[in-house]
């Protein structure tokens, strides 16, 4: 909500909040993108190490998580179109729950990885016995940084959408379709990041 009435947005047709979110998404594109550049650097340098390490990620849970996030994006997009406040609110609640499910699955994955000794550091080991190929630990460094940062963004989005879900059901002006669309943009972007993370982390070197 901008306080510039009666000097309300006079130039440009775009509402400031929506444009602000697109500009923020641009900055986030560079945030995750720079991480991607570092990842690509490592992958080009150590293709075998990255492939070997990627085989140790849980592709079933990773694929499940991708499906959960895609569905959550659907829910938020539907909520933005829904003219009924109660339906919109419920769809937003679904999004939040799907986000929670995503985090739970992620947590399970992290626990498995911790048990297998895949956390980078002095205790890192890949498989039993053989020495980890060069680059395997680097892969897992990216894995944890990228998914960790992504998960933090998911948590933030869940909080925001949760507040909107609550407000939409009560007909608050601040939870109207405009603010909902802005929050939706953010959530879809978080989904896009995951769409690009999925092949980078789970699908390297899967073939027999």
């Amino acid at each position: 909500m901008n306080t510039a009435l009666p000097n309300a947005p006079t130039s440009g047709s775009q509402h400031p909040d929506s444009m602000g979110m697109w500009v923020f998404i641009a900055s986030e594109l560079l945030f995750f993108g720079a991480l991607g550049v570092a990842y690509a650097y490592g992958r080009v340098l150590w293709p075998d190490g990255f492939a070997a390490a990627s085989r140790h990620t849980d592709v079933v849970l990773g694929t499940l998580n991708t499906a959960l996030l895609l569905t959550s994006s659907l829910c938020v997009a539907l909520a933005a179109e829904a003219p009924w406040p109660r339906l919109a609110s419920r769809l937003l609640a679904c999004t939040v729950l799907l986000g929670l499910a995503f985090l739970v699955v992620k947590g399970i994955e992290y626990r498995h990885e911790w048990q297998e000794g895949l956390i980078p550091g002095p205790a890192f080991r890949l498989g039993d016995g053989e020495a980890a190929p060069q680059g395997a630990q680097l892969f897992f460094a990216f894995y944890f940084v990228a998914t960790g940062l992504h998960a933090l963004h998911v948590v933030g989005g869940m909080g925001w959408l949760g507040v909107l879900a609550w407000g939409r059901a009560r007909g608050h002006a601040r939870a109207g379709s405009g603010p909902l669309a802005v929050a939706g943009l953010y959530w879809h972007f978080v989904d896009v990041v995951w769409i690009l993370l999925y092949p980078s982390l789970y699908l390297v070197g899967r073939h027999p």
Partner: protein
Amino acid sequence: MTQPPDPARRQFERAARRLLGVWLALLLLLTASLGSAYLRLGVFNTVASYGIALVKMALVVLVFMRWRDADAWSRAAGFAAACALALLAGLTWFEARTRGPAPVPWQVPGQLPALGAGVHASAIDASAVASAPEARPDGAPPDGQFGPAPVSRRAPAPPGNS
């Protein structure tokens, strides 16, 4: 609770069908990328997995994020970010690719040997490069001509701060 008028309801149903259709397409693409990863396609594994990811991304951006309804300046922001990222990636890649195995002519001698390719004698400073000390087996930097190597924090560090 008042019912919205029928046009609004019909509009929502149209929108919902479109969104559900895109969602199904996304799930199918997800299955395709998972499946293709298990086929032995060589470099096309990477091409396929990222290609499918880009298609999924395009669907989300175009349909869910309603890219075409966004302001021209908002879209310009996205393009600008993509260009800046391409710059970072491109020039960094260019620099990494054009590094030769030998040090550049003004590189101070006594550095670690180049990764992967072994030590190639530089035409200018063959003796210095040939006398570069071997890396220690535990991966720590060798003692150079500038004195003993500093202690890495990986070794049991003094009561440290981070």
